[in-house]
Each structure stands twice: as structure tokens, then as C-alpha cells.
């Protein structure tokens, strides 16, 4: 389940840039700015901000 992947990612203390970012979890995407997660996007919505976060 992709929400499990999200929980594991959040708990793994990920490094996020101090700017807008986007992380793809498969069935949805999470966008944020710095340490603050902003919104969930649907799979087909385009990402904005820095991508390729570990």
C-alpha cells in the first residue's frame, strides 16, 4: 500500500530541500515546501518543485 510507503518515508527522517518539492508514491504524490508537507496530488496531476527525493 502506498500510504505505508509514505509512512516509512516520513519516519525515515528524509532530507527535503528548503524549497518546493514533490515525491511520487505511485497512486498519489506529496508536495511540500521545506519540512512542511503541503498537499496530496492525484496520480495524474503533474508534480511541481524539486523531484527525485530519497
Amino acid at each position, binding site marked *: *500500500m502506498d*500510504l505505508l510507503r509514505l*509512512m516509512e518515508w*516520513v*519516519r*525515515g527522517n528524509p532530507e527535503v530541500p528548503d524549497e518546493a518539492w514533490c515525491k511520487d508514491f505511485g497512486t498519489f504524490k506529496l508536495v511540500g515546501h521545506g519540512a512542511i508537507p503541503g498537499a496530496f496530488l492525484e496520480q495524474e496531476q503533474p508534480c511541481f518543485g524539486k523531484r527525485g527525493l530519497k
Partner: protein
Amino acid sequence: MVDGRMLSFIQFLEELSKDYITLSPAEVQRMRDRFGDKTLQMGHLDGDGSMSVPVNAIVEAVRSLGSRKLIEAVDSLKSEEMVSMLESAEALVERVGEVQKRKLEQLVEKLQSEPDEAKAHQEWKQIEKMIFGVDYPD
């Protein structure tokens, strides 16, 4: 949580009555050094490096481990030297994380079958708290 001190019955009940136990930054680091990043799946890191771990997940993990392995795990966590018992402690750390993954799956299933919008919203807030470790305003 205990730092080698013996808890009184009342202190023990107080610890159990909390929603979360806070591990100190030093304790979190020590466990990460021993068990790796699976330690992080036990809870949420706070800004100061401490970690909040749900008490109910600890209780469920402890119950599932069985008393002999639990004693080994506790001995291992108390000592730096009991390498042979490390496996039990590692199993405990893993299970605390696994319990929460299972709870997240149950919450999502409940949300998906909830016909009432207000109740579904409350269930989503629980999911959000479990994932991000904080209550976000609506």
C-alpha cells in the same frame, strides 16, 4: 523510559496511560547504532532528536514477542555487551514498527468502507497523525 531505575506500580501505570513514550535523543542514537534505521520506524523523530513511540504499539509488540524473548530483549537493551541476545531486541524494535503498519492498514480499510463523511474525516485525521506524527489543522 526507565534508565535502569525500578518503576513503582503507580509510575508503571502512568507510563501505560500515556499515548506516547518519548525516547531521549541519546537513546534513539544508541538504538540506531545497534539496530540501524529500522529504529526510526518505531515512531516519529522530533526536532531535538527524541522519538515519540505509541504505547499501544509497544504493548502489542511486547505481547507478541513472548516472555522469554522479551526478557532477552530487555537484557540486551540494558547492556552493550550481550551480543548473543541482540536478536530478541531487534525483533522487538521491528515489531513495534510492524504493529503500526498493520494499524495503518486497518485504519485505511475502515476509512474506505465508511459511508459517513464526518466519521471518514475523523478517520483520515487519525491516518494523518499516524503518518506525519502531528495534528494538522483542517
